[in-house]
């Protein structure tokens, strides 16, 4: 642990003791110095491990930059055209979009159902919540390895079904979605539960007095009031799915026949696995970053418009 990060704030901290009679302005200045001293470790981390890498990746994306050869000068826009011309680029984009849509719809729907089931606080629901939440303590990699064993013909406990879980492109997609739903449903349930508990009982009471049935209450009271939480879950789920890597790297290895290659897998392959071309990988990750920003901005805007 770098000691400077820990001890840096100590010195200016003394300056904040306000001896009587000091001018207000000087005091404010020492306040802001102290503030900076406490924020310095954060700023250092963000600068070295976030800002600098972003600058490097931007530079890489327009350079001829091999994994072992290093930077060999600018070549823009060759990396970008190479990426788009790559025979796996469009299939990877298509598959990532399909996977993202399927996962988001199923995951949010199921999580909402779970949240409604365990909404009331009692012992039985506490047990249910814990059961649904336990898988989210596992790492995505551990969960993928676990399902790899569950899906394998040799060790599967589901062998009696006689299904090939990873054999066809469609089966591989749905098997992966099942893994992701298992791993994340509890987490999104928890987020939605927070939203549900923020809805005051008076609103339900009012709906009941107005003669609303269960479905009407859900449709016209719960859903609209839950929208901020649903929007948060959707943003997290869309972002997470667009960046899918572990589950496909471990479970399907992109197969069968490269049918389950995601964009992030393609980035990894271009950079380290065979491709050894950091420039091209950087170009693809810039494209991915741009797509992610567009999706998030659209989401935020949609949310704001509907609220306004």
């Amino acid at each position: 642990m770098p000691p400077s990060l820990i001890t840096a704030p100590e010195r200016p901290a003394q300056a904040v003791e306000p001896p009587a009679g000091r001018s207000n302005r000087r005091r404010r200045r020492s306040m802001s110095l102290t503030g900076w001293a406490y924020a310095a470790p954060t700023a250092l981390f963000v600068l070295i491990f976030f800002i600098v890498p972003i600058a490097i990746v931007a530079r890489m994306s327009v350079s001829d930059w091999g994994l072992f050869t290093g930077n060999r000068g600018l070549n823009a826009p060759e990396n970008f055209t190479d990426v788009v011309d790559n025979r796996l680029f469009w299939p990877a984009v298509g598959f990532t979009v399909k996977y993202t849509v399927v996962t988001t719809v199923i995951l949010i729907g199921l999580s909402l159902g779970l949240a409604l089931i365990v909404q009331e606080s009692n012992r039985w629901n506490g047990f249910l919540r814990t059961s649904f939440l336990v898988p989210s303590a596992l790492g995505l990699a551990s969960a993928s390895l676990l399902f790899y064993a569950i899906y394998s013909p040799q060790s599967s406990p589901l062998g009696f079904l006689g299904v090939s879980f990873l054999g066809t492109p469609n089966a591989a997609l749905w098997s992966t979605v099942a893994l992701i739903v298992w791993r994340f449903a509890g987490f999104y349930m928890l987020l939605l539960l927070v939203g549900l508990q923020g809805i005051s009982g008076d609103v339900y009471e009012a709906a009941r007095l107005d003669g609303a049935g269960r479905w009407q209450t859900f449709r016209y009271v719960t859903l609209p009031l839950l929208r901020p939480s649903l929007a948060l879950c959707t943003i997290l789920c869309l972002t997470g799915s667009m960046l899918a890597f572990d589950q496909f790297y471990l479970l399907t290895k992109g197969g069968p026949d490269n049918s389950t290659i995601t964009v992030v897998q393609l980035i990894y392959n271009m950079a380290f696995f065979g491709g050894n071309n950091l420039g091209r990988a950087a170009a693809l990750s810039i494209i991915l970053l741009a797509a992610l920003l567009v999706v998030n901005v659209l989401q935020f805007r949609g949310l704001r418009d509907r609220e306004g």
Partner: protein
Amino acid sequence: MFRTPQRILAGGLAILFLFPLAWASVASVSPQPGSAQIDGWGFGNYRTLAAYQAGIGQYLLNSTAVSLMTVALTLAVSLFGGYAFANFRFPGRNVLFLVTLAILMVPYATLLIPLYVLLNQLGLQDSLLGLSLVLTMFQLPFAIFMMRISFEAVPKELAESALVDGCGSFRALFHIQLPAVKPGLITVGLFAFLAAWNDFITPLVLISDSAKMPLPLAVANMRQQVMGIVDYGATEAGVVVLALPCILLFLALQRHYVRGFMSGALKG
């Protein structure tokens, strides 16, 4: 008020969610062909795991070291950072906060490629410290956000009374505010631990020396060892070893985990 069909449905779902974990624990000690545990029940698969390459002890040690360093760094940085954002006004405060949150918007893969080059230049290639520094950076958006709202929830009179009593801001932080933000720290620490213990793509890119690999990477590599034949028994044992600390920690700290969200951190 209990509707029976709903209870059956919910109970069935709970079993469905618990089944994979239960199955993995049982399967890892049960006999199966192609593993080290062919006849009868026993811990043969765990012995395979223990003897794999550098030995499971080494991998456990790597994972523990990385997780502890990440937790310590995340706690230290977010404690000071949250304090700064909540209690001080300084130029660049909002920009720094927003840029820290922006880390969430950037894909891991986008950052890992330049980080691979950067860590090489810093002499931190194949280093557990380098790995922990990167994992800490990935934790910062959540950790800083969480600690900022924790400090903002501390009554202002408490902080001011400490300053009036002649405490420096450093002493005020450690003696007065620290106890009040403890739940936030526990949540941040738990998240940092789970993330560091489980992360896969970061060590996959940054660590190539097989003796320095953390456990998830080692278990994943172990699958394709003997001439492409997968030892599922050892894989199941590996999953159990990977999952057990996380599940125990989660059950022990579940209240804090849930409260971390319930505190309103993520509302709206």
